[in-house]
């Protein structure tokens, strides 16, 4: 009843080509953004803003990056955390070395650095694919972290290799409170998500999907494989890089290269598997799920099972639940949470008459 597109006529090309062609979707997204921009900062406690919602947004951005590469262009990557590290250290150095560097520009330049590194490590994808490529991205993962640890210039010769993010200053205003950092993150994430949504339904996105589905066939119909694959690596790494910079500046403040380890890469991979491979929406759902699940387990398992279980059991339970869920999702719903959302929408369209 509420979710029905009957009667919405498209009378111009512009109307037909909007990002959200159904009016209810448009209103829904605007409402969602409105709630997150206005209502959430008012009602959420500082802990929720700082430790849950902001990281969810940042990880969504990283998952979005990986989703572009893996979900849309079909190139498996296990090195997303390394590209986040490049973005974080890149932005840090731009702000440090160049006087009067605007924060947003530093963020973008950090992303560009990550994109360049991404292209470099994407080069092997022209010769190899699948598992072989996964190993190539593992090389990126270990190599980049090693370089950031060993070349002390990157961490400004700090003795421990840890960098402390500078204050975020935009147009003279310092983003210091959790609310302001959250709102800044939200704004960047919303803009980049809309860009991604647009990109994947454009020629570029279709080329990526053609390469994903069958690269030889794509080449035969005239898609330039090299350009398409490297572009996917560049865009994906750019997103991961910006996410990494936000991770450093808006979330934890002090970062070390080893923080961007293989576990983090796996976490981001899990986000897109659970959220939905090849779906913008899925990146957000997956990130929220992966961030919230450990918190849920930490808080509720001791309550339910009482003193029977130790802390180490809870952490093992986390591993088991994570692993089990991955397998469960791959078997039962390979398209992840995003697919469930889509099914729900289709049901709503038909409701109350299911035929």
């Amino acid at each position, binding site marked *: 009843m509420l979710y029905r597109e009957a009667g919405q006529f498209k009378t111009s090309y512009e109307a037909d080509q909007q990002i959200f062609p159904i009016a209810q979707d448009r209103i829904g997204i605007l409402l969602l953004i409105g709630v997150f921009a206005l209502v959430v900062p008012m009602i959420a406690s500082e802990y929720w803003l700082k430790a849950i919602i902001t990281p969810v947004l940042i990880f969504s951005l990283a998952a979005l990056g990986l989703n572009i590469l893996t979900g849309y262009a079909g190139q498996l990557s296990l090195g997303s955390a390394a590209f986040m590290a490049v973005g974080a250290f890149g932005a840090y150095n731009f702000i440090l070395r160049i006087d009067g560097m605007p924060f947003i520009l530093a963020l973008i330049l950090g992303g560009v650095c990550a994109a360049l590194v991404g292209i470099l490590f994407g080069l092997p994808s022209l010769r190899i694919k699948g598992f072989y490529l996964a190993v190539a991205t593992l090389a990126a993962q270990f190599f980049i972290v090693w370089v950031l640890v060993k070349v002390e210039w990157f961490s400004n010769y700090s003795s421990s290799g840890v960098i402390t993010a500078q204050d975020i200053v935009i147009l003279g205003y310092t983003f210091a409170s959790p609310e302001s950092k959250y709102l800044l993150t939200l704004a960047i994430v919303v803009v980049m998500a809309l860009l991604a949504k647009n990109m994947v339904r454009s020629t570029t996105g279709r080329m990526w999907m053609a390469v994903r589905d069958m690269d030889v066939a794509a080449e035969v119909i005239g898609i330039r494989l090299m350009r398409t694959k490297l572009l996917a690596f560049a865009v994906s790494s750019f997103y991961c890089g910006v996410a990494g910079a936000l991770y450093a500046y808006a979330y934890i403040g002090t970062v070390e290269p080893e923080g961007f380890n293989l576990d983090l890469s796996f976490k981001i991979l899990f986000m897109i598997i659970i959220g939905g491979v090849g779906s913008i929406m899925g990146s957000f759902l997956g990130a929220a799920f992966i961030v919230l699940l450990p918190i849920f387990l930490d808080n509720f398992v001791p309550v339910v099972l009482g003193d029977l279980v130790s802390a180490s059991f809870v952490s*093992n339970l986390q591993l088991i639940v994570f692993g089990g869920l991955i397998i469960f999702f791959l078997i039962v719903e390979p398209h992840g949470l995003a697919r469930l959302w889509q099914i729900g929408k289709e049901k709503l369209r038909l409701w109350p008459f299911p035929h």
Partner: protein
Amino acid sequence: MTFFFEVLIGGLLSGVLYALVALGFVLIFKASGVFNFAQGAMVFFAALTFVGFLEVLPGWTGLEAGGQAVFWLAFLLALASMIVLGICTEKFVLRPLVNQPPITLFMATIGLTFLVEGIAQGIWGASVRGLDLGIEDVPVEWLLDKFNILVSTFDVFAAVAAGVLVTVLALFFQYTRIGRALRAVADDHQAALSIGIPLKHIWAIVWGVAGFVALVAGMIWGARNGVQFALTYTALKALPVLILGGFTSVPGAIVGGLIIGASEKLAEVYVGPFVGGGIESWFPYMLALGFLLVRPEGLFGEKHIDRV
């Protein structure tokens, strides 16, 4: 020069251990086309189960702790656990995912990695344990006297064990009915099915054999460095080995292991000091990557032909 040979031999011997882990990968990839990321977790699980049984068996059965009987009983029980694990994997993970793209199966084995790690630590605890196989870690006197080269007895033992294991596996594949069936499945699933080879059982057997290999690898690694979570990282070392040797080749795993082991130690010793050290973490990957660019199918891999 002596020092060079010492490093080289040390590297080759640790390469043998990488090869052992890589062997488990190859077995499973050959027979089912699954890239089993969980092999490292299986090594950890096997070693932990073995050590765990060594600890609890004397209490349960009244056998003398540290004796032969306990050792072999623990070995059999650990092997049985690995076979059960293999069968469960086949039943609950692989079979529902039949016909999915290989990447999906790969991601499922990443999930399996977490599951197995969690279960292993959930049952046996997360503390680091020592494992004594009764072989001393002393230099081989003969080599020390004659060439002045330090080589640990333990490493030699590990190499011999690996050699025996590979020989046994090769004979098993070559001369037994099951071995023949395994090779048939490896060549072509559908053709093997159509002549009446039970695919289900074959997969269960392959995972069982991979479990056995993981157990041997886990015992040797565990005796060397203690049974601890770090064992799971052996899987990460085995990946460049696989790349170098080719995913489908048993000799490839061995040769690849030796090359990776030797080159990483040599690089660490001779190149490391110039760039700040610690290059062991990424050098094997870069080596494998460079090699891939020249020969994408690895040393002994099968050439892949694309068709639309």
